[in-house]
């Protein structure tokens, strides 16, 4: 990858590491985020997403490694970083016993918004979150989608250049999630860099670039398209047949099949190459008495990519673990 001038990088980290006692939460993570992009940080729960985002926001000190956020050093200038960024933590950190307006007023005081702009910024947040009519209601009684948009509004009331969102859409209904992503696009359109963590793969498709973190290590980095085409060493076949639950067990036993998993009513089969096994698979299934409706090569989804990357990582780690025992 071409190293860009640091000024154009919203975030740049090298060999970032965080240990909690003997536990290594984040190990040797390096990546760059260009200004204005939506960078998705993807990974299962406990993979180190929140730990990384907290280090970037200056509320956790890295154990090793270095990095910059908005051109400022993570290790030496955390307080300067804090006034340039917006952060929305995993739990919506609103004051439940304060009204919508009081929450916004509090954060505009904390971020020292000049009094000439306060009213306009408040109006902007209220409109963005769709809370104009509910401005005097307590934050605690709002529904999940509203709380989430209000929390975003409070985090960006000071117009930061970079916004860090830690699993902003967890536990919200699909329509609210969609609306929230519209807001993220709107921010990116205004030139704001958005760093967002998620474990929803459909959301990952909305990002300009993705990093996949697993067990504290960054195991993939690129655009969604790059990940699907270059990182997937195997081909994916989609199979539609009778009794897919039973067929799945049979398919897994066949030679040349790496993995098979259910995708709705279909089965995704990961194989070495597309052509040779395709015919063998069809005949083998027919022999076992499963009527094959459809069997064709498909472009892997992000889920296929990540499942295969994670399985590859696990099978590489397992022999090591056994040796250690």
């Amino acid at each position, binding site marked *: 990858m071409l190293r860009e001038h640091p000024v154009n990088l919203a975030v740049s980290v090298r060999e970032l590491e965080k240990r*909690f006692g003997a536990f290594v939460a984040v190990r040797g993570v390096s990546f760059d985020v260009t200004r204005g992009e939506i960078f998705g940080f993807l990974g299962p729960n406990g993979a180190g997403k929140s730990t990384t985002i*907290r280090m970037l926001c200056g*509320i956790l000190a890295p154990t090793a490694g270095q990095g910059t956020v908005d051109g400022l050093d993570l290790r030496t200038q955390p307080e300067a970083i804090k006034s340039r960024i917006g952060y*929305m*933590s995993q739990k919506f*950190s609103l*004051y439940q016993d304060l009204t919508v307006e009081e929450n916004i007023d509090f*954060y505009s005081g904390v971020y020292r918004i000049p009094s000439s702009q306060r009213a306009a910024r408040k109006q902007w947040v209220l409109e963005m979150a769709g809370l104009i009519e509910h401005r005097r209601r307590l934050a605690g009684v709002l529904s999940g989608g509203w709380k989430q948009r209000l929390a975003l509004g409070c985090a960006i009331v000071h117009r930061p250049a970079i916004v860090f969102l830690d699993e902003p859409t967890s536990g919200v209904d699909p329509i609210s999630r969609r609306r929230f992503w519209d807001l993220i696009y709107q921010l990116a359109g205004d030139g704001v860099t958005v760093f967002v963590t998620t474990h929803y793969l459909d959301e990952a498709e909305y990002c300009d670039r993705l990093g996949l973190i697993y067990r504290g290590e960054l195991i993939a980095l690129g655009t969604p398209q790059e990940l699907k085409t270059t990182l997937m060493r195997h081909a994916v076949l989609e199979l539609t047949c009778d009794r897919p639950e039973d067929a799945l067990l049979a398919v897994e036993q066949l030679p040349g099949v790496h993995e098979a998993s259910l995708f709705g009513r279909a089965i995704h089969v990961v194989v070495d190459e597309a052509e040779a096994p395709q015919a063998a698979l069809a005949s083998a299934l027919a022999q076992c008495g499963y009527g094959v409706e459809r069997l064709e090569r498909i472009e892997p989804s992000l889920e296929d990519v990540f499942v295969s990357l994670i399985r590859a990582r696990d099978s590489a780690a397992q022999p090591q673990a056994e040796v250690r025992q």
Partner: protein
Amino acid sequence: MNPRRIAALAHKEFLHILRDPRSLGMAVAIPMLMLVLFGFALSVDVDEVPMVVWDQSRSHASREFVSRFEGSPYFHLVGFVERPEELAHALDTRQAVIALVLPTDFAERVETGRRVPVQVIADGSDSNTATIALGYAEAIARIYGQDTALAELHRQGARLQAVPVEMRPQVWFNPDLESRNCIVPGLIAVIMMVIAALLTSLTVAREWERGTMEQLLASPVRGRELIAGKMIPYFAIAMFDVLLAVLMGQFVFRVPLRGNVALVFGMGAVFLAGALAMGMLISIVAKSQLLASQIAMLTTFLPAFLLSGFLVPIKNMPWLIQMATYVVPARYLVTLLRGIYLKGVGLEVLVLEAILLAVFGVVMVLVANAKFRKKMV
């Protein structure tokens, strides 16, 4: 330190208090309740001690002797007993705390000028009352002895009018020796210590528990701004508590306030700054509301109650414990308030205590600020 940010934090904290009427009620009701409870119950005055008499003499002289006790405000004669078992029963059941036993030959011995042994039995399970009551009983017996001796001398023609030396006691600052006058000013200090630390001990821990601290840590708020912003509303509440306590002292307990009222509030303010900062420090270290409130109770209530000189004079304590009292800030406020209330003295006498209170305040604020790190672990 940015005033806008402190104002935003103070305003927010004030709203939290307003929205939670229970905590606001607690902040005002607890000090009042403690003041009423301790102010009325914690009287160490001894009077109307219940007494029984076993008068074996049944004579004019013995009745005259007993009437001296009856006429005294310190004793209350609850009845006569006839047998040792009755006497024991009266003391066992706490009908009486003290018992007088007059011998059968009481009258003869008095008349013939011989020594009369009068037995006084006291219930020592309440040693304070027993000690004081025995002192009173001894004084009454001595006066009776003097009076009969003088009467005898007089009858024999001596011209002696009175005993040569007569003590005329005069008590300064609290002429009626009312323990309430001594207790109420000290009590104000103890209550302030407990309530102030308890109030703030919950605030930082609450933000940790609710997850809002993470958001604050990621903002440009400075630790000292957070501490200052959070202390302001509680300082206002605690000063209101001081006002209520002073008013109650004046109108409910009628404790004389001889010194400068402004000095009471001024010293209260200095003390509260330290006590509130101490609560903040506990909250910062504990990070959980339950733990913080328990630590606050433990580190304020017992030392303030036992080691401040409020109940037990510090001079009566063992040397090691006396040393420990120097780090109990309530000690200085107890001395200050008693001085201002009862003696009417000012800073010319109490300057050392005032300085030490200020030191306590500054140290607490500095330590709280140093302990607050803008990191999650």
